[in-house]
């Protein structure tokens, strides 16, 4: 079994502050891992490091193909949601349907609420086909229905051999392995 994400003795420094060091873990197919910790403890930075958007100060990170959902929407505001998502994946319809966005395909992105935008970023990840999902605060702005739908998607992704790394200070549905970061 090969790991989809592997941290080996990783340290990360941002703005002169050491966020964590000697961090090692592996994430294999079918596994889910939650990064927990208080505000400012480096959860989002760990996610960006896992995505390759930040460089580790020490240690090594190996990653497979991945998809990231964070607070940045990365959709063109003036386009209808369906077309905006199509820029990233040619057929986002199934994922949009799974997150309850099917009826919003023609609505311009700029008119969507923050919860609907969160669902849209999760739909982009679900439609990506990448084996590794990185979710930064996936429950932010989601209502209970949205959280339930995300839970289903995560379960299905794990069953098909995927892995999920999520950063959240909230309780996520299902059984998650945990890494606790200290502030």
């Amino acid at each position: 079994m090969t790991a989809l994400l592997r941290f080996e003795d990783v340290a990360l420094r941002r703005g002169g502050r050491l966020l964590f060091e000697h961090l090692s873990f592996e994430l294999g197919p079918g596994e889910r891992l939650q990064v927990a910790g208080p505000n400012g403890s480096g959860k989002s930075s760990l996610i960006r490091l896992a995505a390759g958007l930040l460089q580790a100060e020490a240690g090594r990170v190996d990653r497979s193909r991945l998809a990231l959902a964070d607070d940045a929407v990365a959709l063109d505001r003036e386009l209808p949601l369906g077309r905006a998502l199509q820029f990233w994946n040619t057929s986002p319809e199934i994922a949009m349907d799974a997150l309850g966005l099917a009826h919003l395909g023609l609505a311009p992105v700029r008119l969507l609420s923050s919860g609907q935008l969160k669902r849209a970023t999760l739909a982009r990840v679900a439609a990506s086909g990448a084996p590794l999902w990185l979710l930064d605060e996936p429950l932010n702005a989601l209502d209970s229905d949205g959280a339930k739908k995300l839970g289903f998607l995560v379960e299905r992704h794990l069953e098909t051999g995927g892995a999920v790394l999520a950063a959240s200070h909230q309780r996520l549905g299902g059984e998650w392995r945990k890494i606790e970061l200290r502030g």
Partner: protein
Amino acid sequence: MIGALILRDARRGFTGAAWLPIAFFLLVATLVPFAVGPDARLLSRIGPGALWIAALSAALLPIERLIEPDHANGMLDQLLLHGVADESIAAGKIAAHWLTFGPLLFVAAFPAAALLHIDGHALVRVLLSILVGTPGLAALAVAVAALTAGLPRAGSIAGLLLLPLAVPLLIFAAAFCASGSNQAIAFEAAIAILLLAGSPFVAGAAIRASRT
């Protein structure tokens, strides 16, 4: 992905404010006869240089919307995660920016030249110098936009950065318009190629450095 990015950027340019720099270009060209008087001989002598100054000022207008919006909403991060290198993002943006800027400026040069009594061979030379120079100008604009993305008062800093770097382009474009010398346009083309070749790397490094 890179083709989709060019199409998307060009679409955003045309549906957005692509006409604004062009209107500004025409406006500056209109101001020249008011400033120096209606003497046709004087106007046709200083006209090409004035048009190039107008073109440089117009090139400044779109800078703030070239990179910064995509930086702010995570587009640049997602493109990298989809396997597009930062340098390729920059190259795509240069192509798209030229598409929304170069051809329109070329067309607008006709009425602007008429206002300044530039005709015949002089008009052909002005059009040639614009055709050769605008790709370099577009590349420079994207590099400067990437370097200033996210800074406070980015627009003013971009002006201070872009205009001095555009001076070599201006010198040889104006020299070609005045003399029609082959060497002048060859030098202008060489500078445009240098800017086109270097800007993707400068802009790519700037995009990478902005990811903190």
